[in-house]
């Protein structure tokens, strides 16, 4: 153990950086969504205020259900996201491997979804358990497509699992510029929308049906951490996409602008999808991912094998 490790994990590009950038981008999301809808939107510090206020609020723990799981779930999922952000971030910014590759990322992200399910079903509320059930179905729906999406850059980089090597393989051309890359990128964007439970895939939370679903019984700091997790995903997932398909970031001179643009473009695409779609049913989501998205990504994988 050394200080560097702690720096990577807790400050940059781990917890502190991801949290602050996430809350800021969360503000961008809320502001842009508000302008979409002819509203004014919140002030810049709103997300920070909300988070710190929630930290000081009372935590009400449900009587029925599994209390320990209920409390622990948001913090475990928070730890998972910090790890993913550290792994992705160190490859992107320092070009060093932080003891993890794509397989590890896949597992960590899956644990995050499992934690949502466990935390939701631990509360013993009927809305939460329905929401948790929907979260499992959504996970089943998007996971296969997501794994296939990750396969495309692995194949294109010559069967490399290490993030640094995938980045290095894009030195003479981003993967997104190829046929398989663009298909995988678009499906990847939709998978991320589902993993973040943003519209049209906000099926587990479904405010007007399940009243926030798995998160319904949460209050105080645990709720604060769920919210923080959500905003941190605004950093983790776009960074992952930039790394896998858009050739990472470059910080030499004018290239910084291009790097920021890449990131913002993905975020804006997510916001546009979010604001122009109603919530679909869970069976429609399964249908979409299994009937259309997965076969399409499979085609992309085959194309990648043949070098397109």
């Amino acid at each position, binding site marked *: 153990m050394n200080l560097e490790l702690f720096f990577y994990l807790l400050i940059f590009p781990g917890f502190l950086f991801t949290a602050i950038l996430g809350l800021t981008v969360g503000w961008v999301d809320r502001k842009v969504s508000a302008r979409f809808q002819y509203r004014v939107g919140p002030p810049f510090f709103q997300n920070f205020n909300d988070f710190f206020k929630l930290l000081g609020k009372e935590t009400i723990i449900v009587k029925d259900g599994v209390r320990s799981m209920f409390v622990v779930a948001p913090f475990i999922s928070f730890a998972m996201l910090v790890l993913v952000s550290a792994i992705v971030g160190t490859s992107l910014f320092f070009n060093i491997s932080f003891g993890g590759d794509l397989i590890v990322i896949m597992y960590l992200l899956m644990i995050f979804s499992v934690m949502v399910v466990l935390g939701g079903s631990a509360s013993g509320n009927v809305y939460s358990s*329905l929401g948790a059930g929907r979260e499992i179905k959504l996970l089943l729906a998007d996971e296969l497509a997501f794994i296939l999406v990750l396969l495309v850059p692995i194949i294109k980089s010559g069967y490399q699992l290490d993030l640094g090597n995938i980045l290095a393989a894009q030195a003479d051309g981003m993967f997104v510029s190829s046929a398989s890359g663009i298909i995988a990128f678009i499906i990847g964007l939709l998978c991320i929308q589902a993993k973040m439970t943003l519209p049209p895939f906000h099926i587990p939370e479904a405010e007007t049906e399940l009243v926030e679903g798995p998160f319904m019984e949460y209050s105080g700091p645990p709720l604060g951490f769920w919210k923080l997790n959500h905003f941190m995903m605004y950093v983790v997932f776009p960074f992952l996409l930039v790394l896998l398909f858009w050739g990472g970031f470059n910080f030499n001179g004018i290239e910084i602008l291009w790097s920021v643009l890449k990131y913002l473009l993905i975020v804006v695409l997510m916001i546009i999808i979010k604001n122009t779609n109603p919530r679909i049913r869970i069976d429609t989501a399964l249908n979409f991912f299994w009937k259309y998205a997965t076969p399409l990504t499979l085609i992309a994988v085959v194309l990648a094998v043949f070098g397109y």
Partner: protein
Amino acid sequence: MDKNVIPVGPYHPLLEEAEYFTLQVDGETVVDIDLEIGWMHRGHEFISESKTFTQSLYLVERICGICSTSHPLAAVHAMEDVDNIEIPLRARYIRTLVGELERIHSHLLWLGLAGHFIGYDTLWMWAWKYREPVLQMFEIISGNRNHYGMMRVGGVAKDVDPDKIKSLLDIMDEIEKKIQMIAKAANDDPVLKSRLKGVGVLTKKDAVDFCAVGPTARASGVSVDVRKDEPTDAYDLVDFKIIVTENGDVFDKTVVRLLETFESIKICKQCLEKLKTVNGGIRNNVKEISAGEGIGRYEAPRGEVFHYVRTDGTNRPVRHKVRAPSYVNIPTFKASCKGIPVADALITLAAVDPCYCCTERSIKIRDKNNEPYQLDLMKLSREKTEQIRRQMK
């Protein structure tokens, strides 16, 4: 398999008002559904009997914030029906104008809420943004945005200022363009279509069996509209058509409401044009209403609203009965919500545009054997009053 009960209400984001649906679910499928009412009772009918005729118009206006001109309009129809009171032509046009403006704003409000219920907040905000000019028109016409206080026995309370008619027509044109834009966007959206088509179908037979009224019935192919069936006010003088579709699903209910909005705009424009030329008084001076009975009907945005008034020659009604359209529309969930997923059932519940505070007249109580039985709240409250009176003696 276990059957779970999902409680929707009494306080739930789906419902703007307090109401309690219990959905029995098997996994995600609704197998049975029930409604428990009695959260919103405010005793309007009883209070109305202690008010004068004019005061009771203000009272029934507050039965519902959305149909706040349908109730007074049906009530004045009922009161005028007692003595067959005629009203001036100009007042008839103004009544129709206010009634149709209300339909526009109510349908837009529903469209926005429906968007919110299916998680389409952009549609929600847009629909409500374009509802705003309608409220402005109300403010120009009556001075109020929500409770207009326009109806009087024998006419209307305020005249429409002839200088304002041009600006009103301009606003009307603007609204029409915007709603056309929304209607086109909603009609072209494939995701919206796949979400609403074939969802919560109410067949024509069920619509007739449940006596459904208004857009709920018209979406199922039942052509029923008080404005055409029994025209009052200026409805026999203006040109419009009833929108009827056949499928009875949520999408058709949306289509019916959107197309009706255009018909309402057409009627409003005709009324405004007529108001330029038709002159004369706006109110006949009605000194008293003799003893008798009267019924009043009006096609509220949600369907037919019915008022019954019995008078005894004094200046207040002896009995004032209100039947709101939601009273017959809400029970259609028994036919349309069974066997469909929860996500569909909830939008189907909202698709009849239920208004619970209009509806509630009775309370459901369970006796010692846990069997539900109905009790007349009016009877209960009178017994209670008698009891108190006896105690005070």
